[in-house]
């Protein structure tokens, strides 16, 4: 693979930006357009592929690469059907354009572990269509039927192997051919790369330090900005004394935006230093001066007062209650969490003739245009967003706040500017995984679980997200209507916007064969900015469901694995991963002295994952030994990337289980950097073993599903070790 140079990246996005945005339709349609570009001497059979006269293939990746492997996975799909080696393909990041919208969201978004699921047919068809046209062209040259032609590694040959033509030789002719209907997709038995390709196409760039992330964006005459934001949620600028800061070395300007006070300087360090010299008083009139305890007290009050909207109601829970021998009732509290991506938020912006150009590590470039337009006098169409490699997403970069900030600063100083957040900015001004309150009740009779009632209390994420997402779905609407659009978006759930399941996803699909099941959501919003965090609702609901299942198993004096397996006997895919993980872990067999295992299984984003965590307590601290993980994600396009994502999700989840907590005091986040928002590290991370269940089902996502089972699996192991149930995250051992 050719590592992407910064210059190459800019050139490619600039030349392809306009051309690709127009005139393309999805492959498979009769109006499929092809074209040979005389100037570029290349053929673009569709919005994703370009082949030049030398046979060089360029693939436009319309999902961002933030570690999860789309760069390799989606390129492999195109390569497979086009019949070229994935290593030879030049991958470029897509500009904002309609063909690149995620069909599941109608927005150009990378999230929800949807890339493989939504691209599986689309990108294969793009490759298959291009290949069919090349074959048709060769067949016409040789005056043979296309069925007598074969392809391999960028060459079409006839069936007796006598004649061959390279893709490069055929591009001009292929542009004149018509697509067959239906498109000839490969038989999975013939796959050469899907299921077999073992590398990552971005590895070379990432081990040599040449991969270009947002923070590496470079422009002539670039200036740097550091932004001082109100420390408390909802604070506003009161008075500003910037005289000392203005006198400091390199300072170009100090501007106020609706986000805070920005220092713009010749160098980043100068901007950051001068920011420390600002004297700002904050107006707290509209501030949310709550502490974490206030939030949970609010939730509890809401849960008492409002039984919530019923999301599922099987059987008759009240009857089960009256009939029960015994009842259990628990409360679980889960904290606000920061994303803490390794690459801090950043955005580079410059004014162009009548518009603005943005370079940013964003999961949603079309929402980035909305954010930039909102904070400038521009319309979304005036804003061009270039995406880059992303140094960790985890949902954080679905929000576009940092793009709005950079746009606002650039709009005022009228110079190219790169806004870089400090780690403290990132920790204290995140859009957090919401704190959530779970109340669960169970009814037991004659040694069986007969009823399950799960009340989830917390906010709806769409209330926060619709602000940017709704205008992006209707970008032609005038700006004054955006506020109304967001409200309509929320009201129109299920009609014009997807139903917001974020609070109860992973709870409402309660999988165990229990006759009476109630799942309820009591909406309570503390006014603290929240958003999507790796695995979203599953991150807290899997903990609630799988921890309470463990509590019920112990109450019934049943083995937690056997108890689950029995109630999953009609859910074969879930049962298979559970059994596999238990087998790998040697569940029930003697363990080293002082070790214990906990188990959990969960399905999220259509992927099934079971995990067994083995831990002990050493010197008063939890020691993670080993995690055994079984995953069923349908057909594994790149098995090692599936394993990588399970490892990643497990460490992400266990980090939250042991350390993750954003704590508010009077509206101010108390954590600031990695010393008090801790991470698992080399010495504390467990060994991990992953097994992939063989499957011919269509592939589903793997970026998130590794996370949810890890937290309850560890909590369940800690119960085995201590006899004390951990009902609040992060886990704390009693001293």
């Amino acid at each position, binding site marked *: 693979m050719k590592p992407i140079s910064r210059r190459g990246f800019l050139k490619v996005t600039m030349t392809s930006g306009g051309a690709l945005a127009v005139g393309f339709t999805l492959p498979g349609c009769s109006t499929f357009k092809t074209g040979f570009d005389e100037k570029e001497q290349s053929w673009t059979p569709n919005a994703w592929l370009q082949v030049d006269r030398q046979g060089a293939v360029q693939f436009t990746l319309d999902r961002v690469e933030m*570690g999860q*492997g789309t760069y390799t996975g989606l390129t492999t799909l195109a390569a497979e059907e086009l019949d070229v080696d994935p290593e030879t393909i030049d991958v470029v990041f897509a500009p904002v354009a309609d063909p690149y919208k995620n069909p599941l969201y109608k927005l150009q978004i990378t999230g929800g572990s949807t890339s493989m699921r939504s691209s599986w047919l689309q990108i294969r068809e793009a490759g298959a269509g291009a290949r069919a046209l090349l074959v048709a062209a060769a067949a016409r040259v040789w005056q043979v039927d296309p069925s007598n032609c074969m392809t391999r590694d960028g060459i079409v040959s006839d069936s007796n192997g006598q004649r061959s033509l390279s893709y490069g030789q055929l591009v001009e002719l292929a542009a004149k051919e018509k697509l067959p209907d239906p498109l000839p997709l490969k038989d999975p038995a013939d796959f050469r790369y899907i299921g077999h390709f*073992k*590398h*990552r196409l*971005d*590895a*070379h*760039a*990432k*081990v*040599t*330090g*040449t991969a*270009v*992330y947002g*923070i*590496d964006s470079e422009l002539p005459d670039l200036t*740097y900005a550091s932004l001082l934001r109100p420390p408390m949620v909802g604070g506003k600028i009161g008075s500003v004394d910037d005289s000392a800061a203005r006198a400091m*070395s*390199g300072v170009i300007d100090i501007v106020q935006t609706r986000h805070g006070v920005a220092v713009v300087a010749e*160098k*980043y*360090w*100068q901007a950051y*230093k001068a920011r420390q010299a600002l004297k700002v008083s904050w107006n707290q009139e509209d501030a949310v001066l709550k502490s974490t305890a206030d939030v949970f007290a609010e939730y509890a009050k809401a849960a008492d007062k409002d039984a919530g909207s019923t999301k599922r109601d099987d059987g008759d829970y009240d009857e089960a209650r009256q009939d029960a021998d015994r009842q259990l009732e628990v409360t679980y509290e889960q904290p606000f969490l920061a994303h*803490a*991506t*390794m*690459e*801090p938020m950043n955005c580079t912006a410059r004014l162009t003739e009548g518009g603005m150009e943005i370079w940013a590590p964003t999961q949603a470039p079309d929402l980035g245009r909305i954010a930039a337009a909102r904070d400038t006098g521009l319309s979304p169409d005036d804003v061009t967003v270039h995406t880059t*490699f*992303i*140094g*960790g*997403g985890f949902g954080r970069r679905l929000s576009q706040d940092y793009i709005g900030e950079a746009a606002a600063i650039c709009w005022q100083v009228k110079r190219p500017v790169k806004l870089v957040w*400090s*780690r*403290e900015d990132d920790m204290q001004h995140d859009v957090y995984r919401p704190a959530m309150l779970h109340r669960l009740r169970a009814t037991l009779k004659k040694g069986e679980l007969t009823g399950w009632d799960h009340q989830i209390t917390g906010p709806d994420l769409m209330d926060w997200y619709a602000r940017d997402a709704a205008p992006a779905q209707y970008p032609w609407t005038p700006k004054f209507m955006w506020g109304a659009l967001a409200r309509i978006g929320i009201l129109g759930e299920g009609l014009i916007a997807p139903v917001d399941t974020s609070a109860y996803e992973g709870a409402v699909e309660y999988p165990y064969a229990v006759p009476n099941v109630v799942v309820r959501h009591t909406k309570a919003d503390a006014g603290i900015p929240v958003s999507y965090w790796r695995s979203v609702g599953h991150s807290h609901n899997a903990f609630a469901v799988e921890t309470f299942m463990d509590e019920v198993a112990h109450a019934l004096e049943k083995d937690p694995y056997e108890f689950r397996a029995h109630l999953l006997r009609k859910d074969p895919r879930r049962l298979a991963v559970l059994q596999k993980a238990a087998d790998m872990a040697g569940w029930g067999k003697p363990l080293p002295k002082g070790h214990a295992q906990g188990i959990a299984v969960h399905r999220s984003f259509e992927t099934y994952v079971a995990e067994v965590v083995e831990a002990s307590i050493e010197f008063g601290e939890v020691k993670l030994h080993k995690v055994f993980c079984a995953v069923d994600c349908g057909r594994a396009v790149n098995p*090692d*990337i599936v394993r*990588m*994502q399970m*490892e*990643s999700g*497990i*460490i*992400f989840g266990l*980090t939250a289980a042991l350390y993750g907590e954003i704590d508010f005091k009077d509206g101010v986040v108390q954590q600031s*950097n*990695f*010393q008090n928002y801790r*991470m*698992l*590290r*080399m*010495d504390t*991370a467990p*060994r*991990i073993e992953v097994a992939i269940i063989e499957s011919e089902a269509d592939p589903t996502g793997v970026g998130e599903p590794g996370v949810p089972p890890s937290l309850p699996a560890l909590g369940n192991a800690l119960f085995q070790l201590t006899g004390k149930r951990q009902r609040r995250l992060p886990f704390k051992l009693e001293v």
Partner: protein
Amino acid sequence: MSISFKVNGQVRSLDVDADTPLLWALRDELGLKGTKFGCGAGLCGACTVLFDGSPIRSCSTSLSQVEGHDITTIEGITPAEGLHPLQAAWSEHNVPQCGYCQSGQIMSALALLRENPSPSDDDIDAAMTGNICRCGTYPRIREAIKAAAEARKTSDASVSGGDGRAVS
């Protein structure tokens, strides 16, 4: 006032504020963007470079401290053709995910292997614990370090560190 130091074998002179962290000088003055900003406080290791052969956090090292010293960055260990053995091991084991922390990880691993050609798990823990990976690539980093150490043992050829020094 100009500050001079060696970067990847070449003497460079910079005329910037003396309290500027080395990180920003490398990235924004010298265009060596492989070294990353992660925390600004020496807590995450994304900015790790070698200072006279020892790993340091360039975000917390001012330019005045490096005057006259020898700095090696990820760009300095990448050969003109192919990959450094550690980079090759990283690639072979599919270590990088988002990749943002990996330059720092590789520089820490390089310093470890130079001191200790066959590190134990505890040695790897001790040397690598200052480097956070939010994608959780630790198990693979451990395997890649072991593989690079093993390859070094079985290879007769001296493995260059790219900056003219042996890996171990």
